[in-house]
């Protein structure tokens, strides 16, 4: 029985190492920089300059910058992954009134999705260790993006609400870009 147990242990260790080694994750930091660079470019490309008439409707959403403070490299990585997911979700529906370039928008979404998928595969989620700080950042981000979502819903996803949201996302990605360069 002891032999069998020992063999099972060895088997588990081997399988876990093969899984982690088969996942090529070294390219993620490099790819992330490229995804952010491309996303910023596509955000600019998909629409025109910010319309003057929408200036009065401008709202301050107050992005929680503390989630990107590099206290722990891993927590920042997790925060970035969540931000990507939120942005991806926001830009996924009700875009007809925005009248943006469809191809640019699709490519924007595609890039975010690729990065999210690969981050999910590579970042080892530690379910046992539930850091209080991680939970707090997750909630802060959730609150921030819900504010934007509600804003869009209230304005019925009209052009101005979309343009304001687009500008906000741009600011958000620029912050992430700054943090990613430092990592």
């Amino acid at each position, binding site marked *: 029985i002891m032999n069998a147990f020992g063999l099972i242990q060895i088997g588990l260790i081997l399988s876990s190492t093969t899984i982690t080694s088969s996942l*090529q994750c*070294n*390219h993620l*930091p*490099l*790819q992330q920089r*490229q*995804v952010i660079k*491309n*996303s910023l470019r596509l955000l600019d490309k998909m629409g025109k300059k910010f319309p003057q008439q929408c200036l009065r409707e401008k709202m301050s959403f107050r992005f929680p910058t503390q989630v990107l403070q590099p206290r722990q490299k891993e927590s920042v990585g997790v925060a970035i992954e969540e931000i990507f997911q939120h942005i*991806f979700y926001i830009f*996924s529906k009700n875009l007809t009134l925005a009248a943006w370039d469809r191809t640019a928008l*699709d*490519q924007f*979404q*595609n*890039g*975010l*999705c*690729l*990065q999210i*998928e690969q981050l999910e595969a590579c970042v080892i989620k530690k379910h046992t260790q539930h850091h209080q700080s991680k939970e707090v950042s997750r909630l802060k981000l959730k609150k921030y993006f819900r504010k934007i979502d509600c804003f869009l819903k209230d304005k019925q996803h009209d052009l101005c609400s979309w343009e304001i949201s687009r500008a906000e996302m741009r600011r958000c990605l620029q912050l992430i870009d700054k943090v990613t360069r430092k990592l």
Partner: protein
Amino acid sequence: VKDLLCATNLRVLALNMNFQLFWSQQEQQEVTYNVQYLFGFLKNLNEDYWDKWLGVPRCENITNTCCNFSSIITSTGFYYLRVQARQGNNSCFSREIKVDPLKTNGIGPPGVRLDLSDTLLHIRISPPGGAEDEIMRDHYDLSYRILYWKNSSNKEEEVKQKEVKQTIATIPDVSPSSLYCVKVQAFSEPYNKSSAYSQQECIHTPAGSSLPLIIFGIFMGALLAVLLVGTPLVFVLYQAYNKIKYVFFPSCQPPLNIEGFGAQLFSSPYLSAAEEPLENCCVIESMVTEEGNQIDFPDYQHYKQSSRDSGNYSNDDNASGSKGSKETLEREMV
């Protein structure tokens, strides 16, 4: 029947961001193909995407079994591809193939050019995908592995390796009169991908630094010239100088206490001086004999000798002695 129509064995070959899709044809007759692509994220949304498939340009209604779909690919993003086979009214969609551009793409070999300067071998690398195309460089963070060795016929030289990130590398201290060969491979550490090695480029290093040799040769030649021409010339000049010095400026002066010499500053005792007044010395013989014969000597004129004798020294013989000498003189005359 319908299954035989479908395209099978879909595979993607990509080199330097040039993407080609290949498939196999099952039925041989009159099948046209349409290649379609789908943005990868559409599958992750909880929405129908059957109407979101788009056609790949220049791969619609084709009869060959390959398609270049580079035009629809952006480096950040992923795609699904499928092939629709059509024959008359029948149509069949192949299985979908997922394409992650940067992972699927292969890195091509770089270009190599060699240059020499002094004892340095310069290797100029042109990145795969061309110098203008920055996609490869930006996305892959390329580095280059250089293999170089000395190609000598008699023995096998060890192959040396050097890894660089820039597109120019220098090998110091190359030996003269040798054939050096180089080949380069591009690789991406983050993506764990490497290209094939480039073509082998070889270059001959020049025969040993000739400039010092030339300088040495000139120096030796000049030295020889100086020795061959200069030495006899110096010798001749020296001899001339000596002669002149000997004649005009004699080194040994006669002692000053000898009368007359001190006053003559510029006249050399070795040059012919002016003719001194000669004294005509005649030996006047007046023989007074007992018989009273007086012997005349008419040939006394012959005796005019340019005698240098200043006649200071006179023969102070007495009469008796002089007689005897006179007699001998007579005899000599005869």
